[in-house]
């Protein structure tokens, strides 16, 4: 028996090591590349560890964001327009991602509740038609959406982006939440209704409080999807007041002189907010999913 346990642990840790190499290795390599000098990045044979460790790109982005030109140049760094506005654009992306995750969880929960709990004709039709709206590629809807946003004077507006992102996220939120709600024992609901609660009260007082883990899970999914959205951010935003992080990140690539280290550093930075967000709520994700979120 002991021997069997030992083999089991060896196998488990071997598998874990493989997992780490495959899923974390690529990202670590990106981080390492972002700490190199531009000319070392294009060196053959490959430079395995950055030497000297160069923080130049990060300095450029951070100092450019928080100090004015004079201070920055006194540190012998030249900050470009893109690096100056990059961190500021995180705020726009953050506002969008927060709002999308909040509103899609709230609206999604109310839409998911009847699908999970009520018995009406067309339940599955509703569930599937919600999914169907996402079947046509966003690319094909891009021009019509931009056209309507423009007609309604809502281009270059974060609210527009929040609405668009919600339409991407809502179907998935509703699907996840309806599955989650099904795992909550019906006895609780029946008892509440016996006490005179109507459906809205049941949803508000029983289902939603009991589903905090599920709601958080859906919220994180929503945050991650809308943080990284690029196409509509590109098409809707028009000024630096509303550029999102993905749009500014794309500006680091240039026709004339491409600085790859800065592009890579910008990519690394773009990953940090969603990771922090997800890690912060991670205990809810796991417990949320662990309670059987997708069990029908």
């Amino acid at each position: 028996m002991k021997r069997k346990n030992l083999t089991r642990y060896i196998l488990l840790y071997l598998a874990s090591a493989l997992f780490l190499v495959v899923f974390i290795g690529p990202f670590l390599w990106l981080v390492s590349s972002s700490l190199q000098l531009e000319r070392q990045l294009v060196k053959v044979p490959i430079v395995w560890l950055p030497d000297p460790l160069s923080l130049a790109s990060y300095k450029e982005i951070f100092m450019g964001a928080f100090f004015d030109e004079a201070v920055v140049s006194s540190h012998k760094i030249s900050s470009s327009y893109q690096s100056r506005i990059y961190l500021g654009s995180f705020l726009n992306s953050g506002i969008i991602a927060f709002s999308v995750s909040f509103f899609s969880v709230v609206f999604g929960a109310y839409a998911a509740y009847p699908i999970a709990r009520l018995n009406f004709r067309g339940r599955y039709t509703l569930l599937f038609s919600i999914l169907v709206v996402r079947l046509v590629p966003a690319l094909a809807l891009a021009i019509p959406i931009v056209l309507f946003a423009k007609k309604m004077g809502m281009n270059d507006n974060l609210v527009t982006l929040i609405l668009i992102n919600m339409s991407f996220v809502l179907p998935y939120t509703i699907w996840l939440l309806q599955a989650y709600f099904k795992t909550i024992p019906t006895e609780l609901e029946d008892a509440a209704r016996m006490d005179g609660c109507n459906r809205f009260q049941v949803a508000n007082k029983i289902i939603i409080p009991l589903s905090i883990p599920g709601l958080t899970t859906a919220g994180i999914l929503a945050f991650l999807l809308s943080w990284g959205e690029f196409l509509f951010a590109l098409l809707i935003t028009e000024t630096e007041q509303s550029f999102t992080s993905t749009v500014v990140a794309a500006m680091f690539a240039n026709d004339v002189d491409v600085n790859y280290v800065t592009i890579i550093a910008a990519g690394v930075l773009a990953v940090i907010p969603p990771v922090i967000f997800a890690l912060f709520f991670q205990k809810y994700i796991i417990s949320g999913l662990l309670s059987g979120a997708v069990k029908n």
Partner: protein
Amino acid sequence: MGAFGQNALSTMTKNPSSEIPQGRLALIFSAPALLILAVTVLVPLAYAIYLSFHRYNLKRAKRPFAGFRNYEKILTDDKFWDSLATSFIFAVSAVAVITVVAFFLALLLNQDFAGRGILRALLLIPWAIPDVVNALLWKWLLHPAFGVMNALFQMGGIIDQYVAWLTTMPSAMIWVIIAYSWKNIPLATLLILAGLQTIPKTLLEAAELEGANAWKRTQYITLPLLRPTLTVVLIFETIFALKVFDIIYVLTSGGPGKSTTVLGWSIYINTFKKLDFGTGSALAMILGLLTLFIAIVFYAFLDRGEKQ
């Protein structure tokens, strides 16, 4: 459901003998979500459908009604069937890779051992990487001259010389599938992990006592009980994969030749490069209908699972 429910709700309605029909109640509950979906998707969708029935190229002043001619042109073009096949090869492989890897990863993370929590947390990293950054990451890893994959494979003796992975087939397709799956595995893993947690431990233990080996237990207990979860994973992943665009855009631009030209890329080319919105929209409608058909097949599958 039943008498209690009706009593409770009857206080809300004027006519004590009936409650709000559940269908209408459902509509009230889902109104905000449906409204947003309608405004942001249905209205543009209607316009895209309108475009698909017109000869609509921005470079031309005349944009006459064309009936089904755009559709006819697409369906009689070999290029469409080629890219449809490419889309299917991509989607089937990616969904298979994602589901299988996620399944085994979930089994691993479902075991009880020290460090499991850290692994679960780290799983978030690939998931949190924006699509565009993911594509750049893989382009950099696979760089023909400075890519770490080349350096590693050469050290491991797998290749003699650096290889330009994205310029030949089938390696271009394989790497696109790997890069795509890498980013999409974590979500699938978390969903399956959640499903695994709902399988009663006692059931597995009982089977073990009766002498069923690990494979048999997986085959006869875990997999059947996971069916609802796997169905959801399959539906989500198939929809995502059939619409793939970002990773193709950055890694291969549909090449070498047309070997990785999936439908998503064709739609982009027609809409944004040729400015032919008519054909682009018609292609999108065809892809949409196709995905709908697949979703209905899954629907039947899910429905059957529900009834059992």
